[in-house]
């Protein structure tokens, strides 16, 4: 949390003034019992009605000044807290955008979203409350005590004792409840988990007739939540009665000792009333302080989590100087490349060697988990290789600045994600200033033209978040168009025709082949048919390249390729092909 506080810097004035003004307000409040005491002692004692009126006007005045200072304080603290959070939010968003795939894998997108949203709100609340109350409440508690000292030393000692006992009670109960609240939260998460799982597995649960088992499980976990809640409730229910006893016991002692002092002539009647009033002020503020501390611990925890994200260093670092483009013999070259995911036990790719000439089509095939996606991810430097090197146009990939490197690639990821906005907006992701002509051309190639023409508004058709108003196949074709529109030198299709039927898939491949100037294409696929006619096929098994060559070569030389092929085509099928 501490490192976040530097973003408060621009609001130093507000951060000082807000608590200060709150303190002044509290000070006015502390004067009230004194004024009342003098009304009793001087006004009533002397029967001086004018004096009483004056004092009551002072009471009203104290209230008015309190109001003015308090409103100013509220404004400063709201401004500081919100501007601070908004700045942190901006910094965090910017930072997350700079993270490499490794950090994204490790942290998980959903965690990052929580950091950006609910954690931020919690932090804002915490800062706002702290600026407003953190000084005020202790100030009133100790202020009341000091005021008591100005009245009478002996009586003030009662205050000291009461404050100590009250603090022990309030903070003792709080502290013992905080871990219980955490456990309740965990149990609640458990109940949530069971519910969510039950919904996502509704079909399987019903197919196995497990409804009653599910209900039993839910009852069990729900019961244990309720038990814990009741237990915690019992403890926190002690707070009111215990503080009630303490304060009122203190009042009794106060009256008893006060009576003796008044009898001796050390104290006046009004002073006893004042002391009595101070006592009630203490309790209210102490409870406020305790609540503040609870929400503060929550905010600090959120702040620490946000800070932890900010401390993540992007593992892939880019140079800033642009590389002069020479046309190398090979557009992509891999030399003894090893790759391992962070914290993984084993390599995902081992000793990969590959040379690709401009305009060639490379097929990458292999079973699940064989490293196909990892391979294209190191070619586009979403991850860095562990050993060996990746060359683009003859230069080590690490020499390129981010923007320049990205401009080589058009990437179609496995998951077909589109963004809220028009079709045109979405395609412009691939080329920021693309003309309608270019966009239409890309749609034509990706076999999506027909779909878009049928949609209301054509290119202006509004796509919903994540492309929910399109089918899987339609989304996939648009993501392909998005990658093509910038006419990239290297096009990567990561299993991106899985939702297309064979006929559309083959039309698509034909169209891509006819793009001029022809891009270098990497096709990752599980379908042998998708890569059959590639210039070069690389067969992966368990992260190793077990075969490299054309279809005809591999079918003879590579056992695994042959197996994959045969598993998808019958013997009579191959006659066709």
């Amino acid at each position, binding site marked *: 949390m501490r490192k976040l506080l530097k973003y408060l810097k621009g609001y130093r004035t507000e951060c000082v003034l807000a608590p200060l003004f709150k303190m002044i307000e509290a000070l006015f409040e502390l004067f009230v019992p004194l004024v009342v005491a003098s009304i009793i002692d001087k006004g009533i004692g002397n029967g001086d009605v004018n004096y009483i009126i004056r004092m009551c006007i002072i009471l009203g005045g104290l209230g008015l000044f309190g109001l003015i200072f308090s409103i100013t304080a509220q404004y400063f603290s709201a401004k500081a807290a*919100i501007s601070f959070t908004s700045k942190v939010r*901006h910094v965090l968003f910017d930072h997350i955008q700079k993270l490499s795939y490794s950090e994204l894998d490790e942290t998980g997108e959903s965690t990052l979203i929580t950091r950006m949203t609910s954690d931020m709100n919690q932090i804002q609340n915490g800062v706002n409350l702290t600026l407003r109350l953190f000084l005020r409440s202790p100030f009133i508690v100790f202020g009341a005590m000091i005021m008591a000292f100005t009245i009478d030393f002996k009586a003030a000692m009662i205050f000291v004792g009461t404050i100590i006992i009250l603090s022990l009670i309030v903070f003792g109960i709080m502290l013992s409840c905080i871990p219980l609240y955490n456990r309740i939260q965990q149990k609640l998460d458990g109940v949530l988990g069971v519910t969510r799982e039950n919904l996502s597995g509704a079909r399987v649960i019903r197919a196995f007739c497990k409804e009653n088992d599910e209900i039993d499980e839910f009852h069990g976990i729900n019961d244990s939540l309720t038990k814990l*809640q009741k237990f915690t409730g019992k403890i926190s229910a002690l707070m009111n009665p215990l503080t009630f*006893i303490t304060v009122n016991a203190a009042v009794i002692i106060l009256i008893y000792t006060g009576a003796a002092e008044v009898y001796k002539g050390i104290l006046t009647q009004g002073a006893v009333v004042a002391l009595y009033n101070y006592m009630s002020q203490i309790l209210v503020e102490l409870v406020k302080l305790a609540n503040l501390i609870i929400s503060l611990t929550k905010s600090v925890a959120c702040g620490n989590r946000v800070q932890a994200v900010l401390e993540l260093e992007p593992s892939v670092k880019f140079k800033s100087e642009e590389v002069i483009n020479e046309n190398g013999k090979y557009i992509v070259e891999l030399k003894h490349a090893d790759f391992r995911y962070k914290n993984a036990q084993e390599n995902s790719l081992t000793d990969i060697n590959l040379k690709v000439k401009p305009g060639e089509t490379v097929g990458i095939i292999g079973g699940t988990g064989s490293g196909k996606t990892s391979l294209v991810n190191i070619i586009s430097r*979403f991850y860095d290789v562990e050993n060996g090197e990746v060359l683009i146009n003859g230069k080590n990939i690490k020499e390129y600045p981010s923007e320049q490197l990205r401009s080589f690639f058009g990437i179609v990821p496995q998951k077909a994600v589109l963004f809220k906005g028009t079709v045109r907006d979405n395609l412009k992701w691939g080329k920021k200033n693309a003309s309608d002509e270019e966009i239409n051309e890309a749609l034509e190639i990706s076999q999506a033209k027909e779909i878009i023409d049928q949609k209301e508004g054509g290119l202006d058709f509004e796509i919903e978040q994540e492309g929910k108003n399109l089918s899987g196949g339609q989304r996939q074709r648009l993501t392909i168009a998005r990658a093509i529109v910038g006419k990239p030198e290297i096009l990567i299709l990561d299993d991106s025709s899985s939702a297309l039927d064979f006929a559309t898939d083959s039309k698509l491949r034909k169209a891509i082949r006819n793009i001029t100037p022809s891009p270098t294409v990497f096709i990752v696929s599980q379908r042998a048919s998708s890569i059959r006619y590639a210039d070069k096929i690389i067969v992966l098994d368990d992260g190793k390249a077990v075969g490299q060559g054309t279809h005809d070569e591999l079918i003879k030389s590579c056992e695994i390729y042959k197996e994959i092929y045969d598993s998808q085509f019958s013997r009579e099928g191959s006659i066709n092909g």
Partner: protein
Amino acid sequence: MDKKNKVDRKSALKKVLRHLGKYKIQIFLSIVFAAVTVALSLYLPILTGDAIDLIVGKDCVDFDRINIIITKTSVIIALTAVLQWFMNTINNRVTFQVVRDVRNEAFEKLQQLPLAYIDSHRHGDIVSRIIADTDQFADGLLMGFTQFFTGIVTIFGTLAFMLTINIRITLLVVVLTPISLFVAKFIAKSTYNYFKTQSEIRGEQTSLIDEMIGNQKIVRAFSFEDESLEKFDEINDRLTKASVKAVFFSSLTNPTTRFINSLIYAAVGLTGAIGVINGQMTVGGLSCFLSYANQYTKPFNEISGVVTELQNALACAARVFELIEEEPQIPDAEDSKSLENVKGNVFLKNVSFSYTPNRKLIKGFDLKVKPGQRVAIVGPTGCGKTTLINLLMRFYDVDSGSVSVEGVDIRNIKRSSLRSNYGMVLQETWLKSGTIRDNITMGKPDASDDEIIEAAKATHAHSFIKRLPNGYDTVISDSSSGLSQGQKQLLCITRIMLSIPPMLILDEATSSIDTRTEMRIQRSFAKMMKGRTSFIVAHRLSTIREADVILVMKDGDIIEKGNHEELLKLKGFYSKLYNSQFDV
């Protein structure tokens, strides 16, 4: 469906009260305790005031009577504290138990809702009804219990006590108090719009965050970081401005009401002090009055907060009750049969079905399947393949026509009996949180270790399970198991392999398994399907080729029907589909 079942606040309140009915005695006790504690704690300032009256000045203190008052006070304090603790504990118990009851009811309902409901509602929304809304409801209920009731008792109690001391000042307090309420209400009303704007912009920002951060990898891949930050900042700036307004204006309530209270306090002080001079009341009475004036206005402020909280709680309760009162699926008929000795005769007769009334998906569908036949279903997406499975398993009911097994209409068969005769593997793998063993034995809880291992070996799942940290006892969950999609699918197949029911439904059952592994488990599949009626949905044509009957579906209709060779000869849709995989 939602509109029909809208539960308004009033009926939500009725339902809450009905749920509270079970705890009548406890609630009654709580109310009695509340009344007593409030009365006692209001009596304390009077006693203190009396004591102060006895402390007049030097040499003028009546210690004997003070001692009596102090003893009385001590007893009252102890009694109040004990009753207060009882009351709080009872309130907690009742609240949490009611919430537990409501949650249980909602979850039980979930098991009876038709799948149509679960399919057509966002799961996040259902979950938030059962978890977040119920939680909010609990908070409101608890607050209502503890503050609403005691607040009201305090107001009336204070009024009564004040009246016994001095009628004029009491009237003054009664007349002035509404000002503070009025001001609080005015502020709340005028800040409402600021809050609305704030939450609108916040919603906008959240969905942008969801979209961009949720798909950060794609944003990176297209170097779209700057644009997305720009969009974010624009919203962020707007949010900041709106938030400052909303937070600041809403934070005016407390200081303002505090100010008005201090005016009331000053007025009471003035009239009270003059009253003392005129001999209408004592100093102790004044001190008592001042502390009442503070106490009297506080519950008003609290109650207005509690009322909003309660309204919110009722709105949340209404959302849970909406779920609880959803129309359940048609229950099994009293005389519904259990299937015995299922051979695998399945007959679909003139079946029509649609998810939405105006879009017929399946119409006039006929299919007769003999025992042991292998039926493959192919066709483009959205052609109704999965729908057919929904109907076979009776996840959905047909609109017209009938589905029957062994000559019995499935609507006359117990759901549990029908479903346990099918073994189903779906494309979307679903595993329960628990051990691998729990998941495999779902269909046969009493399976022995040998049986489990045998089944896992048959599906080639054994080798990877063995390598997991705790083997078959490794705990997995659907979302974070570290298992690949293919491995999950193997587990789902093993689950069926362990207790092979007489009929099988395989919906893209091997879509995530690489073709080599698929080939290896082919033999087990063949064994599994031997002699069993099976329905297979697949888009890998290699899986389909060996079926006895291939149904080619398009737009909810069977357009071609026959075995592989017959369909190829037909040179229709199927042969086009089949041959396209050999194209360039």
